[in-house]
């Protein structure tokens, strides 16, 4: 039988001692444990420390270091256990397990949080925020965006009208035209805001909801920049493994148009990874030259891209909220969960 390595013996002793400390139910039992391991005369760890002198000089430093470490760990554990066995009353101090005191916690609505996260990413990508009125005209909501009122595309967003040609905007895209009218390129904005549609309340529809519009116009902006910017957004929002897919689609104010889907990679509690299905997150495309011309821009010189997404839908996906209406109930027990 070969002699056991003293370091292994020390580690075994450490485990044994910590277990004994945990099991000690009163100060007397704990004192017995202390004597057993750290007692000056017969303590088992003390004995190893004492035996260092007879060890070969090559082994001595490593074993000594380990023995001192174990001694410290065990001494700390003894002290902690002693305090917890004694209780607060006997030591004459406050019972520090009582709850602390502080003000109410407030917080932002989960949809605002989603808007903020989206904004922060685009801010880092060089965007600023623009805004426009929520009640707007048919010109800004449809016609300026290359959507003739007699085209079926104008139906797809069932619009709420106020009077004559004044309506509640059915998307944040009117901000595109309003921004271009008052600014020269380069344009690099997002426009978060409320939009309105003639939709009945159900799990996935509400007649008012937040949208985040985006618009980039400059010389030399291409379909490649368009894809790259939105793929970068998706990776920053959902993580570096996120894949992005662009599908052809139709919006009157973009050409080519696309729907953007993402596939996320979710890490399970056990560390394994799982890919989600493709989730549709936004409509987008290269700005139609007719829109640039309506803004008075030279469409041969300038190109750009635009996109629009729904932060409430993104918040639903992120937090597992299964009914959009929950966001409008504003039950404080719900809002508290996002603080």
């Amino acid at each position: 039988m070969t002699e056991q390595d003293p370091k292994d013996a020390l580690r075994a002793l450490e485990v044994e001692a910590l277990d004994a400390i945990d099991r000690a139910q009163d100060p007397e039992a704990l004192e017995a444990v202390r004597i057993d391991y750290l007692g000056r005369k017969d303590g088992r760890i003390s004995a190893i420390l004492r035996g260092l002198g007879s060890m070969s000089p090559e082994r001595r430093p490593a074993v000594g270091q380990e023995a001192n470490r174990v001694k410290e760990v065990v001494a700390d554990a003894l002290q902690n256990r002693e305090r917890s066995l004694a209780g607060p009353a006997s030591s004459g101090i406050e019972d520090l397990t009582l709850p602390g005191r502080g003000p109410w916690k407030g917080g932002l609505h989960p949809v605002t949080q989603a808007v903020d996260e989206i904004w922060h990413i685009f801010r880092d990508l060089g965007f600023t925020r623009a805004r426009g009125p929520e009640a707007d005209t048919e010109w800004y909501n449809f016609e300026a965006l290359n959507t003739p009122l007699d085209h079926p595309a104008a139906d797809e967003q069932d619009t709420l009208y106020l009077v004559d040609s004044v309506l509640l905007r059915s998307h944040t895209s009117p901000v595109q035209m309003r921004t271009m009218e008052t600014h020269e390129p380069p344009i690099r904005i997002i426009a978060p805001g409320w939009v309105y549609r003639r939709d009945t309340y159900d799990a996935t529809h509400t007649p008012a909801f937040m949208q985040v519009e985006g618009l980039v116009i400059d010389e030399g902006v291409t379909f490649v920049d368009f894809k790259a910017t939105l793929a970068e957004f998706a990776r920053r929002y959902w993580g570096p493994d996120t894949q992005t897919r662009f599908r052809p689609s139709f919006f009157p104010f973009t050409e080519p148009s696309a729907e953007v889907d993402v596939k996320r990679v979710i890490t399970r509690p056990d560390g394994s990874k799982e890919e989600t299905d493709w989730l549709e997150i936004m409509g987008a495309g290269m700005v139609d030259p007719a829109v640039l011309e309506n803004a008075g821009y030279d469409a041969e010189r300038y190109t750009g891209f635009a996109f629009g997404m729904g932060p409430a839908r993104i918040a639903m996906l992120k937090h597992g909220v299964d009914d959009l209406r929950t966001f409008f109930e504003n039950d404080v027990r719900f809002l508290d969960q996002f603080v």
Partner: protein
Amino acid sequence: MNVSYRWLRDMVPGLDLSPEKLAEHLALRGAPVEDISSAGAELGDIVMGVVLDSTQHPNADRLSLCTVDGGHGEVKVVCGAPNVKVGAWYPFAPVGAVLPGNFKIKKSKIRGEVSDGMLCSSKELGLGTEHDGILEIQGEFTAGESFVEAIGLDDATMDVEITANRGDLLSHAGVAREVASEGEGRVELSEIEGDPGIELSFERDAQEARRGPVGVRIDDADLCLRYLGAVIRSVKIGPSPAWLQQRLRGAGARPINNVVDATNFVMLELGQPLHAFDLNGLAGTSIVVRRVREDERSFTTLDGEKRKLTSDMLMICDAERPVAIGGVMGGLDSEVEDDTVDILLECALFDPKSIRSTRKALVMSTDASYRFERGVDPEGMELAMSRAVALIVATAGGEVDGPVLDCCPVAFEAATVDLRLSRIEHLLGVAFEADLVRELLTPLGFDVVGESDGTLQVRVPGFRSYDVRREVDLIEEVARAHGYDNFPSDLGPYRPGTVADHPMFALEDELRQSLAARGLLEAQTPAFVPEGEGDVRVANPLATTEPFIRRAILPSLIRRLEHNFAHGNHDVRLFEIGTSFRSAGSGEPPHEEAHLAAVLHGRREPPHWSSDGAALAVWDLKALLERVAATAYGGAAVVVPGSQEDDTFVAGAAFDVQLADGSVVGRGGLLKGEVVDPPAWAGEIWGLEVTLPSNPGAPEVVTFHPLPQFPAVERDLALLVPDNVWAYDVDALIRIRGGPLLEGVELFDLYRGEAVTQGTRSLAYRLRFRSPDRTLKDKQVDKAVGVILARLKEELSVEQRG
């Protein structure tokens, strides 16, 4: 658009993709598949059965006893249907079969007679809602063959979402073209069983095409560009052959009769809606295409509905009266019926905008109007007519009478669009060679007819003439055919924009953070409110209970507070930043302002064993309002006791946010009982609403004050302040009269009680004096305090407490 998988596969020979793979394919071409369903999925146990004999059930009047051959010899089946016929074929569920809804067929005895299976109705099979009899299947079958295969239910119906610009995809040929262009083969029209092989001739005229007694005329050429009419005589109306019925069912359509089915088949195949008239129901056996006349304001469509017409609607008329709403729906009087002998088959091209306004005015949409609105192929009309005629003659017999009458006031001319290779690269960021562009566009039906100096001349086919008109439209086609996913996605450099971040966002962010830090939760509520809470009415509201958009946010928050109360939530502190709408005069967009509102109820602090659990009080509301006012308006706003009676806040417990010019931009205070409906256990409820500046300036720049070098001297003064003197005035007087040495004033106690004179209260102030350049002596401070006390007594009758 419901697409039959089998139909599609037959049109694209060599297509070898499962319905699921095909759906993925289509999604990446811009036509995502919403759903794939199969009507026959649950009917695998059902077989074709023929009734060999039927006698009256001996013990029940309404039941019959049938002998059925279901492929495994003759069996006896008790049947309750009134329409059972000897020699007819029916879906038969033998013993052991499972029907939809997990309904198992067992051997049973009904009124004493054994029944070995069941003859099924369409409702029992989940194919329809009709329960008035068993489902008779026309045609010749083998007893015991699969019902699903026999009637073509072994198909997958794909619900394809077609965007508004792609009317050309509202047909199997269109979808097949998209699939085939991926290199999956080419589009072929299937052979018609019993095709008579008729070569149609067309007699064309710009105004009126006429042959003998039959004529076709277009009076309003702005709304109808072309009208083809074919006369087929001596048809025999009856059910369509099984293969035709199968096709229709696979595409989600219901078979009706051979003539109607033929028109529906061609519409689903090629996208051209057709309509068959009973020729003998047309006065003067003629068609006139024209707008509604003054005296024709009502029309009954073939669904039996009486429709109100307006003068801009285009009608298909006979010599006397309208017989169809052009491109929308036929009329009841000229419908093809079982005894129809001669038909006039219509194949027309209508103006999409006119169809759209007509069907919107009539609040209806049909398969035909849906397609006309999105654009029907002007170059495909002859083919559609030929297919329909061949189908009708093949399935209903009859003879084509003369050439097709072709009235064509506006001949279609295909456009040729210039496409610069340089522009493709400019927009898409990738260079494309001319050959590749040709390769990508040709399978989609485009024809590169010329090329010079890096510019291609591209002829646009009729079916794309609605959405491809400009160079950029062709570039999209190039990108689409190339595949969006095949473009690189490398982030390049960019220039910053010229648009400054709108200052309202920064202000809103700061207010949100500030209120959240003070323990409030942000709410979001929709802008729709009931009458009385808004000035601006929605013309077409969805909910008649909330037809207005709000002028204030607070009432919406109060509703949310009540919702929380109803759920037993006691401590509720909500705020919201939203838009207030006010009428700006007739026809104008309303005036919009950003508002911040808050509503509060419950304890000041979270429950704690050391706390007294005190409720929120007026001082909490005041500080909150001051915080909001200071954040929104900086030093320009003050919070003062409410000056006016109002409907929302209790007088004497309300504040105004006032600007230097005296204008009030916000209010807050204790809510009146009328505006909130709390439960009995609720305490005081506080609210506020502040208008935010529309263009907030930059935040004020802080100017540094050097820290003092010499010690301060403090003096406490207890003052007896008469009840008619405001604390604000006492404070202001001390500051003004305190002289340059007075550094700060702090109210640290308020006492009212026996020890002080009736009609006064004791306010205790701590005054802090300091000199910037030396240590103060008591004498100097005594002098300054003496001045303050003298002025207080003289100006406000405030005396020091003894």
